[in-house]
């Protein structure tokens, strides 16, 4: 892949390492209403609310732990002004070049197709800084990100993961170790509170915190500075056959359900019959899988049963397939 080095990255001094993986893109891309072509403008490039929240959380954690923040972005040269703004906040920044050739737009498509490759690339690029204690990402970028990256990052780093958070803060666990306390939304206005051990990868919603502004001195110091570019770092290719590879996203097409024509003469009753209103429904089945592997099996079985998975590519475990309408 790409490309030549520009500036050497110098790892920051010791201290807990908090990494913000930022996806920087056009915040208001135009979409052709006829053919769906997405056109991005380099002048619209910025941090999505979720990425801005991730950066703010990273800065707060580093402050609380007297640590350092490294902000990294995989992208073309057009992301550099935004990284300079991030540097003005005191973070060490690094760009991993991708898509510098051509118009720099193709990269987004490439990344969306291979988030696992992207995660491996990021982990390789971060190696000079040492092992991260926390990695923060936005839960979803504006330009069609899948939100899968943090999960892949956790996998690559062997770290705990907590995704889609609204609250995140530092705590000390019962053994006196640094850890994280996080909250995420559940249905019906509930929230779940998670104790997350380190190292961890967390993705956060664009809510709850507002990215701080750089000081005048910080903004001036960062202005015009070259943005360090990771040294010629080939994007680590996607894993080989045998692993799961998500294809291009398909439009949501639920299966057709054939309903018998209602017999009532009264239109209101026909409507009630058709919509199923006022009919008692079976409540959703709540399953409590013992571990993450079992949960994944249950989810896969549900998806397969409802026609979302191509059965030739996924083997459904026997046990899970017998569960009824799990989620």
């Amino acid at each position, binding site marked *: 892949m790409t490309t030549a080095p520009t500036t050497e990255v110098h790892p920051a001094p010791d201290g807990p390492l908090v990494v913000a993986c930022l996806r920087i893109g056009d915040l208001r891309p135009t979409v052709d209403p006829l053919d769906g072509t997405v056109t991005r403008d380099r002048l619209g490039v910025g941090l999505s609310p979720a990425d801005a929240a991730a950066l703010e959380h990273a800065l707060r954690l580093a402050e609380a732990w007297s640590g350092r923040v490294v902000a990294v972005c995989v992208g073309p040269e057009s992301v550099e002004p935004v990284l300079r703004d991030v540097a003005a906040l005191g973070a060490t920044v690094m760009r991993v070049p991708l898509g510098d050739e051509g118009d720099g737009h193709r990269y987004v498509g490439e990344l969306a197709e291979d988030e696992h490759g992207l995660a491996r690339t990021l982990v390789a690029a971060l190696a000079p800084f040492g092992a991260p204690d926390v990695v923060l990402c936005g839960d979803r970028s504006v330009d069609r990100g899948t939100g899968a990256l943090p999960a892949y990052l956790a996998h690559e780093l062997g770290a705990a993961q907590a995704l889609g958070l609204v609250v995140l803060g530092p705590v000390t666990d019962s053994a006196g170790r640094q850890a994280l306390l996080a909250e995420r939304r559940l249905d019906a206005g509930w929230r779940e509170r998670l104790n997350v051990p380190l190292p961890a990868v967390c993705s956060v919603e664009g809510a709850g915190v507002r990215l701080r502004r*750089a000081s005048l001195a910080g903004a001036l110091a960062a*202005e015009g500075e070259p943005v360090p570019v990771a040294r010629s770092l080939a994007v680590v290719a996607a894993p080989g056959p045998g692993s799961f590879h998500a294809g291009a996203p398909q439009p949501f097409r639920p299966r057709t359900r054939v309903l018998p024509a209602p017999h009532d003469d009264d239109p209101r009753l026909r409507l009630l019959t058709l919509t199923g209103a006022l009919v008692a429904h079976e409540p959703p089945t709540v399953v409590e899988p013992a571990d993450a592997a079992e949960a994944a099996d249950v989810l896969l079985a549900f998806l397969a049963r409802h026609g979302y998975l191509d059965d030739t590519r996924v083997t459904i475990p026997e046990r899970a397939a017998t569960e009824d309408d799990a989620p």
Partner: protein
Amino acid sequence: MSGTTTNGTTGPEPLEFDAVVVGAGPAGASAALALARAGRRVVLVERGPFPGAKNVYGGVVYGRVLDDIVPGWWDEVPVERWIVRRSTMMMTGTQSLSVDFRTDAWGSAPYNGMTTLRCHFDAWLAGKATDAGARLLTSTVATGLVRDGDGRVVGVRTDRDGAELHAPVVIACDGVNSFLAKEAGLLARAEASHHTLGVKEVLDLPPGAINERFAVQDHEGVDVEILGCTREIPGGGFLYTNADSVSIGVVVSLPELAASGVRPEALIADLKAHPSIAPLLRGASLREYAAHLIPEGGYDTMPALAADGLLIAGDAGAMTLAAGLWLEGVNFAIGSGYAAGRATDRALSRGDCSAAGLASYRADLEAQFVLADHKRLRKAPSLVLSERVQQHYPGLLCDLAEGMFTVTNPTPKPGGLKLTRTVAARHGVKLRQLAGDTLRGLRIFG
């Protein structure tokens, strides 16, 4: 870092420069460029995320002013189209009369005017300043002037924790209705009658359609200035071709717009629906719309341009030339900004940044087009915005043309004078007034 600011409060240590330029529009970028070239430490403060992010204008920049500042500018400027056709159109609701001029001379170097988008043009010009060594501070608002014990301006306060930028000279290029010029007491409270409101839409249109409908080739553009399209409100309209879009808008007197109760977008809608304009825009779709004030008072309403430690340039100094046939502001901003930068450099060399030490700025502007044109055309705004020119002449001229070109057989053709008299009477204009205005126009523009 912390220290004591000039107003006695404790805050971050002020940052020192030779000059602070506020506003990275064409005036500010040019001022910073002049200073950076002179080897001065200059910071250009811009509230938008990048130069040009927040700036609105009609669409044509006349580049002659750049010849000395950026030699060979036409090879690198982010141009949309080079203007080769210029039309002046008078219209009523159902008629239009155009004087259409076209020349190949404007279609090749050194060119005359170009359409360009401000987000690209301003960023390009500010890039020249930073290439020369100016520092650019974006997303930062200058919130006020900093003065020393003698009341001299010695810097600006910013919205970044109230931190200050200090320098012996501040150049206010913060555009029309300049808060800094007002704070310095140079600009009085905004007088609505000295301002017009410009509203415009940018409409997407494929390049092929533009070429065909406006009778131009790729890279060639058209500038149409329109009179008689703003109902009873004094003003005018414009239509410019960009590479793959057109800019259409109106500029109207602020107090009269307010008094009329008409929404400005309704005026654009009228213009777009006019039978002479609608076919040009068929199928176009809205990309963006914007509105902005224009300081149209001209020479007689310009503020003093210097105070101790302060200069003002561009629209902050009311330098847009809006004289009917012309709506030029960007070139005046560049000319005045560059001159302000050079005057600051001279004042710094002499160690005298008082108003007197900065006085060479005004002298410079008087000697070049910026104030020379304004002075010569000082009476133009009142003529162009006068009731007869606005309300009567467009219809009168259109009717005159209709009378001349309507074939009335078997009735013989009317004589020119008789026709003029009849048409003038129909529009409530006396021939004496017509002759008087023609003479006045010749005196102003001749």
